[in-house]
């Protein structure tokens, strides 16, 4: 079946079998390998992407179901070539990743959280990433990274004449 998708702001048209998951479509058809295939049945969270701005597991939907939708993958969160998003920066600085397998999904989940909640508590951060498994870091630095990114993004969003 032919479907149209808005991938990281670009209109794309692809031919997929109905049984192709959104994850496989992103990785194999579109070459966006930042969406990681961990378990492929909904338990690890490594395949998380933003679907119309909301974090979802891309292995738990078929690409045909995404017809006409906007999808953001890790490749789409950087502000420009060679740059990193504030969340990505924070992950580097706080050692929020080791092997990096869970990282794209963690970062997208954090972006989704911070878009709705610019000042999350520690408990809210933990809750937000609770569906994403990391086998390396022990999570502490990931939570720290998201808190740091939140703080910076709040600062960056402040209007120019705001008092400190």
């Amino acid at each position, binding site marked *: 079946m032919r479907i149209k998708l808005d991938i990281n702001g670009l209109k794309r048209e692809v031919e997929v079998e109905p049984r192709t998951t959104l994850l496989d479509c992103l990785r194999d058809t579109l070459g966006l390998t930042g969406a990681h295939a961990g378990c492929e049945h*909904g338990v690890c969270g490594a395949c998380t992407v933003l*679907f119309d701005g909301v*974090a979802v*597991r891309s292995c738990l939907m078929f690409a045909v*179901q995404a017809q006409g939708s906007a999808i953001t993958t890790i490749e789409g969160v950087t502000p420009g070539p060679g740059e990193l998003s504030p969340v990505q920066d924070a992950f580097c600085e706080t050692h929020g990743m080791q092997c990096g397998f869970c990282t794209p999904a963690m970062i997208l989940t954090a972006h989704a959280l911070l878009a709705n909640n610019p000042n999350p508590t520690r408990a809210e951060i933990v809750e937000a990433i609770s569906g994403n498994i990391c086998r390396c870091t022990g999570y502490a630095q990931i939570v720290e990274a998201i808190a740091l990114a939140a703080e910076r993004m709040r600062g960056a969003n402040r209007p120019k004449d705001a008092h400190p």
Partner: protein
Amino acid sequence: MKAAPFEYSRPADIDEACALLAADENARVIAGGQTLVAMMAMRLARPTRLIDINRIAALAYIRQENNKEGEAVAIGAITRQCVVERDALIAKSVPLLARAIPNIGHAATRARGTVGGSLANADPAAELVLSAITLDAVIEYRADGESGESPAREFYIGPMITTLPAGAVLSGVRFPIWRGKVGVGFHEVNARRSDFAFVSAAAQVELGDDGKAKRIAIGVGAATDFPLRLESAEQQLKGGALDDAKVRAALREALADIEPLEDLHASADYRRRVAVDLAARAVADARQAAQGKSHAY
């Protein structure tokens, strides 16, 4: 971990979905897909056709409905769990759902997972099924161009087994509204937060002006083939002050001859013991919440 091939249809309305379902006995309806797609990936499910009802906008709603049975909150089948979780009418009028839903999966699965999908899937550990049975919800469906309904307490008959007629599509659910000094409680035990519960318990209580239980509903999920209402305990506790010792005694008695599920993670004995405990806590929470309320909300 790749699904077997299937045909894909996206009907425009529920009657078209029913017609597609009637035409192929191996077709399956897909709503949020948060269970079905995983089952298909593991090839535990191999439907020949998927009938995708996600875009039938008429099935996405949360609204109050008043009819002969009284006031109810009606929820459309494809309403996302995350929407119910944050809805103001739900928080006010079906607070048990607001309490139970954050325990379903994770935020990313609640973003896709639907109310109707979970109710139709009939997992013994499903928080939505427990809530529906505890609150005497009514399940609505369409088949053959006609609407039908079934009380939740008659709808579930086994693990993943319902009385939904062949060829029918679950279209929505109605949760009766309790007015007055109402409080709710919900507890579950699992290996990790948001995993499948080993045992879950829900309670809703309405206190009279004398502080005694005017109405009480208690349900236990995940412990047996499908969630149970603890009617005998409800009858014993109704009209009383719900003090802990009495509540526990009534629950222990009500759970004495259930046949709990047993697996690697939790023995039957463990499930029974924990069910008593969680239900007691749920009742205590419900009582306290109701006491904190001076008037109808």
